[in-house]
């Protein structure tokens, strides 16, 4: 467990640093970055207080604590992927609307030439 939590801690710290670097370069929007921040904070908490995964494992009657960690990680991944689907759908709806507006505007311009 010691090794796992140490690996997790180092991994999350590197990851958080990476996220910060990307935000400051404006590669990702703060809105989506918040979700990743939230994720890394949870991971750090789990890494530091390894009583938590033990408790989760006990509560769900999972034998191996590692499996409980995986469960939490998969849960977080599902949340992240789902939020991406939402963001993608919204963006594609907006792009459709824009394409329609562009077509209408271009038509309007050509008609007035």
């Amino acid at each position, binding site marked *: 467990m010691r090794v796992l939590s140490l690996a997790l801690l180092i991994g999350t710290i590197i990851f958080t640093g990476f996220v910060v670097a990307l935000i400051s370069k404006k590669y990702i929007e703060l809105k989506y970055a918040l979700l990743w921040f939230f994720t890394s904070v949870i991971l750090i908490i789990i890494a530091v207080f390894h009583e938590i995964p033990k408790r989760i494992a006990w509560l769900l009657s999972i034998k191996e604590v590692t499996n409980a960690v995986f469960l939490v990680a998969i849960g977080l991944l599902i949340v992240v992927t789902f939020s991406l689907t939402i963001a993608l759908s919204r963006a594609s709806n907006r792009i*459709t609307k824009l*394409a*329609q507006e*562009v*077509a*209408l505007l*271009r*038509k309007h311009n050509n008609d007035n030439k």
Partner: protein
Amino acid sequence: MELKTIILIPAFNEEEAILSTISNLKKYKPDINYLIINDASTDNTEFICKENKLNYISLPFNLGIGGAIQTGFQYAIENGYDIGIQFDGDGQHNPEYIEDLIKPIKDNEAEMVIGSRFIDKVGFQSSKSRRLGIIILNIIIHLVTGFNIKDSTSGFRAFNKQMMSFLYKDYPKDYPEPECVVMAKRKGFRIKEIPVIMNEREGGESSISSFKSIYYMIKVSLAVLIDYLKYKKVK
């Protein structure tokens, strides 16, 4: 009062049929208002429209039939039309039924009128497997809305202003026809079906190939059920 009417023609790769479609419409009524919505065709559709000075609009990239016709609704609303008629660019629809299609709207009997192949059962009736698919969709629509529809996939339709204002904000993207019926019914709009005779397409390909038909059925059925949850029943 004369209602301003516009024929909306979504066109994706219709270079073979688009000119005859327009000349048929003009034969029917010389001063007819129409708009071709070129859905980023990869063939000569746009060139033909430009050369022949047709009234057309070109989308910057392919949006699919739903996004294309939605652009038409927006154009119709912005230009003060009272009725929009969806009309295929491939020669399947006959202009002589346009008057019949408009009549229920003029008489204030319906907000949406559908030209149906299967009321009088004459003219091109589509293949057996497609008819089966249409019957299944009709049953699903009946279960969801209680509305008896005979031709849920017909793309020969007339919409009044209210209907267009509703649809231009929210219109299904891929296979809009059956879904649109459910949305309209849930919103309390009145739909009427009238008998029409359709032809076999002149050129181009149907937006639904046989390969995709199973995907189509699953997707549309699911979409219809989602609409049932999405739109609370009015009245």
